């Protein structure tokens, strides 16, 4: 007991250097835990984006590519699905609902998604939450658009504002003969929905009526009222989200779609595709974790150097301990205890830093990047990291402890200063 008290008093006596060392350790531990938090938060945010969808169907490509362009609006589809295929899939046994997705146009940097009204009830995010409207409602008229929260915030759109869709993703050719009207604004979701302009499938068809091969037919102008009279039947879509009656049938339906004879199609389970995505980005994650582990190691070595640098001034202290009968291993034990206490304090403070930082940054991370990181009690993994830091810190203490051992054997009681 008295030795623990002495170790604490000794640390307190050197409070400035010790505090700086604890702070450095805390920062490194905070960085390590923070990286882990962001990593798991990013994973669950990705997973939360496709809640309640059993299969994603698109033209045959890679599962990750299909997942990225259909749900995350990253990259482009290499091919479309014909409307006939879509109707065949909708009629397949076990299909409860199906929502078509048609991508390819944009509005001032935001993607335009052609879909059906069912999209707004079927799409689920973050554990089954449905989309909610901040203002207005679903599209009724052919030229109605529903915009995500980020689109509304970035462009300052309000209900009823006009909106012109551009052909392609980074294009100056505008569908300006057919302006849309903002009919609904969605609540913030933290998913790519926030950055999407939603219109009906028919509208996508309508604005392309007078277009051929990616360019407007010369002289052709679209008359919105005339178009409203037409029966617009889409010819192709980009992808479709499918929900099943029973999840038990998912593999059978997946096989049926993948073996669809009329057209090469691909159906993926979102969870499986996500796993594949993680295995791709896993290398970067491991590198990041490795770098933050190196930062922890640097901080602990800095602590060992701090203790080592102070040893010479403490030779007198060790001589006194030896004189009252302490064995050299007690001197070793005191220094290891010191290193352990510093790294434990650093680990605890680092944990506190992470939670404090999270409490402050959580709403910002959610609104700015759609990264929702829940604040929950540290799990076994985090406690394991903390225990490993204390163990590694104590082990780093072996360096000064060994030196002190040699010194106290050589000095005995003779050091006077």
């Amino acid at each position, binding site marked *: 007991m008295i030795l623990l008290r002495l170790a604490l*008093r*000794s640390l307190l*006596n050197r409070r400035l250097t010790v505090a700086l060392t604890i702070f450095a350790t805390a920062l490194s531990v905070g960085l390590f835990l923070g990286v882990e938090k962001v990593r798991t938060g990013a994973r669950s945010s990705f997973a939360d984006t496709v809640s309640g969808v059993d299969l994603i169907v698109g033209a045959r490509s890679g599962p990750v590519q299909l997942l990225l362009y259909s749900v995350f609006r990253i990259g482009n589809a290499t091919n479309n699905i014909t409307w006939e295929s879509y109707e065949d899939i909708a009629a397949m046994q076990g299909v409860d609902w199906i929502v078509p997705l048609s991508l390819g146009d944009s509005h001032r940097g935001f993607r335009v998604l052609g879909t059906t009204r069912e999209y707004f009830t079927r799409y689920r995010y973050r554990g089954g939450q449905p989309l909610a409207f901040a203002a207005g409602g679903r599209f009724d008229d052919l030229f109605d658009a529903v915009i995500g929260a980020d689109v509304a915030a970035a462009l300052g759109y309000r209900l009823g504002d006009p909106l012109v869709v551009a052909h392609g993703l980074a294009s100056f050719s505008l569908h300006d003969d057919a302006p849309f009207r903002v009919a609904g604004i969605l609540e913030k979701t933290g998913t790519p929905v926030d950055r999407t302009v939603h219109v009906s499938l028919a509208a996508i068809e309508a604005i392309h009526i007078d277009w051929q091969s990616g360019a407007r037919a010369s002289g052709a102008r679209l008359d919105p009222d005339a178009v409203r009279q037409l029966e617009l039947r889409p010819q192709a879509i980009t992808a479709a989200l499918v929900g099943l009656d029973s999840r038990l049938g998912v593999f059978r339906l997946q096989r049926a779609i993948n073996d669809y004879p009329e057209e090469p199609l691909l159906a993926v389970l979102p969870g499986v595709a996500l796993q594949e995505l993680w295995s791709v980005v896993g290398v970067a994650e491991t590198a990041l974790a490795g770098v933050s582990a190196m930062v922890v190691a640097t901080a602990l070595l800095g602590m060992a150097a701090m203790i080592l640098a102070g040893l010479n001034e403490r030779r007198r202290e060790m001589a*006194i301990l030896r004189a009252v009968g302490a064995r050299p291993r007690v001197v070793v034990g005191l220094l290891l205890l010191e290193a352990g206490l510093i790294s434990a304090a650093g680990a605890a403070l680092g944990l506190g830093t992470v939670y404090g930082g999270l409490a402050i940054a959580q709403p910002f991370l959610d609104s700015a990047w759609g990264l929702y990181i829940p604040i929950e009690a540290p799990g076994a993994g985090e406690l394991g990291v903390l225990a490993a830091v204390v163990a590694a810190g104590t082990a780093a203490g072996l360096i000064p402890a060994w030196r002190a051992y040699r010194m106290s054997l050589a000095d*005995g*009681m003779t050091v006077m200063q």
Partner: protein
Amino acid sequence: MPAPPPALEISGLRFAWPAGRRGAGFALAVGELAIARGERVFLHGPSGSGKSTLLALICGILAPQAGEIRLAGAPFSALSAARRDRMRAERLGIVFQMFNLLPYASVLDNVLLPLAFAPERARRVGPDRRAEARRLLAALGLPEAALAAASAARLSVGQQQRVAVARALIGGPEIVVADEPTSALDAGTRAAFMDLLFAQVAAAGATLLMVSHDAGLAARFDRSLALDRIARTEAAA
């Protein structure tokens, strides 16, 4: 009935520092020396006469290459380093010239420190160790205000030396070894310190071995030894 064994017994002792790291080699030899229980012995000699080496041997920090040191009839220098450390904790109280105390620790913790390594002494003190430490400090004339100081480093040098004596005496070790304990004190404080040291060593029934180059203190001791008379030093080959 045979006489009780002497508190400290040295016979045929020989220790040599190897040449090299600490400069030229240096050897110390002590033929026979016995200090009786309760005796107060003054050991004086000029610096460089091997005082520090002899003290380190008597305290069990160093082990001799030949000969033996016995404490109260029990082998000491022949024990392993770890057992010598334990025996030093139990049977010896050591007072240095200065810087005796852990500067960051409280006065009481400094006094209680040896008990952490000497269970026998701790047992003799009994359950209320702090009360015993306070009693010793009061007997050594340390004012209450000094006891309340946050750390031992705030005390005056004279007060620090008294705390060191209390630390050496707590739990009743057999021998108190004092190495120039007064040389950092002024003349007035020195006399008062010596009075208190004698009184408390006598009260504890301990043997006192004090080393100093100040021959003027010798008259107060039972016996005075010149180091160059009992020990031979030589520059080793």
